[in-house]
């Protein structure tokens, strides 16, 4: 039996963060992970993260993963891969399966950061090859470079369903439809808008009737559901697809905590069976801590902060630091965590219909049912302004904790203020120079540069563009509106690529002047 000060189970964002904080304070730390590669789900997250600059906003998930691994290894944290922890017993002893051998370890403190597993739903034909989890799609395309399918239907409009749909489009797959039994889009509106403007239709209050095909998926039928989630006859719609992707939520993988005898509760707001723990993440068993999705399904950003808190608390539990340091660090992290848990998508708002923003502006109902803000709704948001010359138009309509746009503008044209969930406001007195830093900095790709007076009869729109092949200057194509419909001819005037943009290219298209408020995506003529 080998002993460590702190044994961490799970090398994802929370586990690595905890290991880092523990190791910084002198603890001997080992991290076990059942996967071949560390990082948990971070290496599949290729979008820019939300939040504040201090908490890795606008950095892509896989880059955050690399940073955490580097920091952990520099601090001497030992990460053991292909190592499945199969049991956690009395006195914090645990057993780990590595290759074909079971090893016995003891931790003076234990941190369980096993994350969450995907939920699934059943329907006729759900076992056919071609029905996959959204996580499987991410694994195949972002880790292994293989398209999960050619034409895909996505079930689930939470952030996972929306983000994975966009990633499928980015790797060249076609997304036939995005479907959810719920009456409203569950994830961030900006994620939905990115998918909708590429032309993906949203079917809310719809779900899958059956997956079709003898040997593998060849199609799918969906139908509308009523308020009691019963199919409404006659509303069936068929799509030819080869893949059906399920993004129907996550459940904490809390089995080890149950084995250990930690007090558990069934808490739907936290995603299912979760351990009861205090503010530091300590469970009912002294010295056994939890962090991340295993203690309540949230985002990776909050998982990292929870990990930090639990890692510091483990150091205090073992006597490496005093209670004063724990309390001081806890206050700092708590403030950040509370920041991330504010706004419309705060845990306590799960499933609630919010009709007005914090500013009192009506929420776009079209965004919640179709995935994009309608023409007659867009003008109500403070980021959407008209003026002479080039200027930003920020189609940010929901209160989410995110503020990189504010720091991005060298001229301070954009203001969010101290309240991180506020909608961005344009400072009319500051002069936009059209640098596009805000367009690239917006994790939600909701900022556009608009110039209505480019030349007689024409204006320009600069859009964030993360697809290949990159359009060429001078190329002709079409402007697509927020719903993905072709609305006008468009010519590419400029394509800007810079290291600071981090793979978000800025595409400037020239469109008829009456289209500058409508064209939000570009597609080359076939």
């Amino acid at each position, binding site marked *: 039996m080998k002993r460590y000060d702190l044994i961490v189970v799970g090398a994802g964002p929370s586990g690595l963060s905890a290991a880092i904080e523990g190791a910084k304070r002198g603890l001997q730390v080992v991290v076990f992970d059942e996967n071949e590669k560390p990082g948990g789900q971070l290496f599949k997250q*290729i979008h820019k993260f939300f939040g504040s600059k201090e908490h890795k906003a606008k950095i892509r998930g*896989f880059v955050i993963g690399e940073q955490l691994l580097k920091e952990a290894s520099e601090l001497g944290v030992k990460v053991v891969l292909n190592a499945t922890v199969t049991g956690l017993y009395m006195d914090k002893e645990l057993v780990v399966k590595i290759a074909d051998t079971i090893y016995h370890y003891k931790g003076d403190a234990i941190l369980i950061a096993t994350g969450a597993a995907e939920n699934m739903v059943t329907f006729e034909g759900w076992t056919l090859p071609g029905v*996959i989890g959204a996580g*499987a799609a991410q694994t195949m395309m*972002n880790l292994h*470079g*293989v*398209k999960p399918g050619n034409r895909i239907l996505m079930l689930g409009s939470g952030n996972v369903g929306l983000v994975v749909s966009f990633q499928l489009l980015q790797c060249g797959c076609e997304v036939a439809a995005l479907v959810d039994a719920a009456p409203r889009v569950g994830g961030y509106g900006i994620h939905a808008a990115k998918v909708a403007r590429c032309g993906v239709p949203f079917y809310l209050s719809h779900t899958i009737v059956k997956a079709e095909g003898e040997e593998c998926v060849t199609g799918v039928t969906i139908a509308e559901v009523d308020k009691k989630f019963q199919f409404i006859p006659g509303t069936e719609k068929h799509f030819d697809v080869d893949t059906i992707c399920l993004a129907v939520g996550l459940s904490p993988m809390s089995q080890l905590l149950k084995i250990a005898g930690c007090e558990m509760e069934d808490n739907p707001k936290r995603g299912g069976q979760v351990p009861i723990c205090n503010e530091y993440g300590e469970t009912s068993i002294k010295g056994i801590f939890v962090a991340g999705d295993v203690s309540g399904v949230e985002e990776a950003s909050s998982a990292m902060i929870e990990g930090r808190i639990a890692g510091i608390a483990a150091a205090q539990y073992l006597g490496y630091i005093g209670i004063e340091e724990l309390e001081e660090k806890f206050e700092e992290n708590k403030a950040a965590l509370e920041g991330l848990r504010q706004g419309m998508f705060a845990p306590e708002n799960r499933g609630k219909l919010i009709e007005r923003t914090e500013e009192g502006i009506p929420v776009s109902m079209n965004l919640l049912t179709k995935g994009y803000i309608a023409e007659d709704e867009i003008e109500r948001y403070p980021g959407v302004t008209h003026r002479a010359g080039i200027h930003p138009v920020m189609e940010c309509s929901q209160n989410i904790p995110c503020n990189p746009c504010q720091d991005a503008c060298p001229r301070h044209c954009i203001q969010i203020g101290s309240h991180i969930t506020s909608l961005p406001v344009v400072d009319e007195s500051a002069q936009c120079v059209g640098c596009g830093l805000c367009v690239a900095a917006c994790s939600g790709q909701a900022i556009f540069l608009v110039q209505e007076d480019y030349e007689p009869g024409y204006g320009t729109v600069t859009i964030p563009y993360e697809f290949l092949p990159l359009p060429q200057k001078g190329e002709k194509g079409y402007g697509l509106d927020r719903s993905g419909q072709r609305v006008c001819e468009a010519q590419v005037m400029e394509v800007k690529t810079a290291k600071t943009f981090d793979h978000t290219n800025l595409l400037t298209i020239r469109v008829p002047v009456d289209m500058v408020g409508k064209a939000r995506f570009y597609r080359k003529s076939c």
Partner: protein
Amino acid sequence: MSRRIAEHPILGVQEKGEKVTFLCDGEILEGYEGEPIAAALRAAGIMKHRYTKKEHTPRGIFCAIGRCTDCVMIVDGKPNIRTCVTPLKQGMKVQTQYGVSPKPFEKQ
């Protein structure tokens, strides 16, 4: 290998191991050393990994992270190998699994 993503807008050209060949139900296929067997199969357009013992219905990749065991196949003679987490090697012999046998049910 049309299902391979040649260049990704964010991830660029993904690093892969050496190109290798392997056998799937007697057919010679190409893949990259170290990638999961399942990734090489999906890239080659193969969707079915096994048929269930009781109902004889087909299964393929579902979770792709070694959790659900839907994608198990016979690899180098050993059944129930999770192809989504087993690295591909040159010359591997991969077979569709019928129940736990490489033989189709009518021949069992």
